[in-house]
């Protein structure tokens, strides 16, 4: 009787372990599957023409204007959300920690972190694109700037959260020692704390960039897309994800191949960014030990 019970418990344990292993194997298998498909299908369209031809001549197989547009909008978005995000993170950690406003803002930031990006795209459409259309008179004026603002809204909570967390990790003795020297608090924040947490904050900014690089939905109604090379932020601007979206929806299989090449570029960029952040975190962790 006793041995039967033990045997049953042992069996259940082994079954659960087996299922846990299977679940993990399934997760890893899906990762490898998706990466392999992207790599193998994208590599066939990879070539110098990808970077020299524009999408207006789709049969040439180029994505040059989409790549340039993506770079411009991502960097513009980062230029907008990084300073604001770092400042907001510093406020949460240094001024509003354990206050009611701070609690509410952290909560709101966490919600914004996983809010649907398509709604943020609609927000930018209503608040930026429509007023700009009214200014320019009539025609709907999608613009790279609107796209960058939409992306900045997505990157903002990522940077706020990582800055907040990184600053809170710093020892309070650092703050006490600095303030005891009679140094004003703003100098403490700018010259001591932000500098001490700089690698952690840089990690947050890179993570935000990795998140932005693949965002499609918010760009559909803000930057729209452009088949020609455009570096004017007030004009419609092409981007890699939106071009991939259009090419994937197109019936022509040649366009699908180019879309896979674009997907490969984005995936490589995202993977490189996440590896870079891990390297920074790793180096940081070792230096602290």
């Amino acid at each position, binding site marked *: 009787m006793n041995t039967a019970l033990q045997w049953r*418990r042992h069996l*259940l*344990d082994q079954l659960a*372990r087996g299922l*846990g292993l299977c*679940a*993990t194997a*399934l*997760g*890893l298998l*899906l*990762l490898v599957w*998706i990466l392999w498909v*992207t790599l193998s299908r994208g590599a066939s369209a990879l070539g110098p023409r990808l970077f020299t031809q524009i999408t207006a001549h789709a049969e040439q197989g180029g994505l040059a204007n989409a790549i340039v547009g993506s770079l411009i909008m991502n960097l513009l978005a980062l230029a907008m959300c990084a*300073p604001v995000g770092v*400042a*907001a993170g510093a*406020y*949460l950690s*240094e*001024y*509003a920690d354990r206050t009611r406003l701070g609690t509410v*803002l952290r909560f*709101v930031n*966490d*919600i914004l972190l*996983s*809010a*649907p*990006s*398509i*709604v943020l795209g*609609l*927000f930018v*459409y*209503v608040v930026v694109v429509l007023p700009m259309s009214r200014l320019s008179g009539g025609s709907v004026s999608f613009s790279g700037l609107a796209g960058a603002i939409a992306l900045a*809204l997505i990157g903002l909570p990522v940077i*706020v959260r990582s800055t907040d967390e990184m600053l809170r990790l710093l020892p309070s003795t650092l703050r006490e020692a600095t303030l005891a020297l009679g140094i*004003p*608090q703003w100098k403490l924040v700018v010259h001591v704390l932000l500098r001490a947490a700089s690698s952690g904050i840089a990690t947050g900014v890179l993570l935000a960039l*990795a*998140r932005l690089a*693949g*965002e*499609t*939905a918010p760009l*559909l109604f803000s930057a*729209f897309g452009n088949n020609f090379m455009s570096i004017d932020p007030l004009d419609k601007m092409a981007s890699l*994800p939106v071009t*991939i979206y259009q090419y*994937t929806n197109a019936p022509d299989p040649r366009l*699908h191949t180019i*879309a*896979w090449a674009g*997907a490969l570029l*984005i*995936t490589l960029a*995202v*993977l490189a960014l996440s590896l870079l952040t*891990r390297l920074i975190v790793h180096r940081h962790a070792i230096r602290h030990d």
Partner: protein
Amino acid sequence: MPAHATAHALASGSDRSRADGQAAAGSHAAQQRSRRDARHDAWFRLALQGCALLVLASLLGAALSTLWGGRQILLHDTMGFLTSSQWNPVTGQYGALAPVFGTLVTSCIALLLAAPVSFGIAFFLTEIAPAWLRGPVAGAIELLASIPSIIYGMWGLFVFVPFMASIEPTLSNTLGRLPVVGTLFQGPPLGLGLLTAGVVLAVMIVPFITAIMREAFQSVPLRLKESAHALGSTSWEVVWNIVLPYTRQAVVGGLFLGLGRALGETMAVTFVLGNSYAIGYSLLMPGTTISSAIANEFNEAVGNHRSALIALGFLLFVVTFVVLLCARLMLRQLAKHGDAR
């Protein structure tokens, strides 16, 4: 010399300024400097506060702007919008029921599939795997979260849809024969449809749920687990009877977080859903979600049609907001444990 200036000079410990005739000038400078510092501090604080309030403003802005953009539909025909399943821009009928139905069904499928898998992975990573394997495997699962949703969409359309089309006849012939749930699995083997979208969404949210479950499982005090092991519990019994009850709230919060992600996801489902405004019993039939309807139609829509799509966006925002609010409230417990550690 004002008393507080002397006090300041004393406090700053500057003997030189106290000793000679420069005392007054020195303390005056110190006083000016401390005033300037206080002013700069106040400005600096205000600037940071402004930036922090921008976070709140963008969330409120997203809600109010979609409400404003969809006012023609939302405010004038609220009941029709919320209860009608007819969506026809030609005749000017805009009922949100079909996209809402599709959003809920695909997200629920995703959650049902992702929850056990995430639990399995978290179980493996915290109890079974040898220590050297935990970091790399957890990192690889996290990598799944960093893949952009458009890549999931392409993989879904070009690789997973043909795969589903090849197994759907088998599904219909086996599960489809069952008495009650059978109708769910009957339909044309298109590959596209609610089930496929749900599976792709599940793959997308597994890393998020896994990360939170793993963090929660790690927050369980070691002595609890060791006591249970010492009493002769197996690993499974420790997880099922000790770890899971202890972390229940955080686990449910993680599931809600995953649900919130699934509800708002656009690109991964748009390609594989088939885009039809139909409500039916079969999971193999094409459908639509709020986000995919917006993505597909927005740039061709004008007037009331565009307003209706923005109203759909508002609806999506409200639903995800409520779900994420619940998730975060439940996850606060985890954060407190994290602070206590």
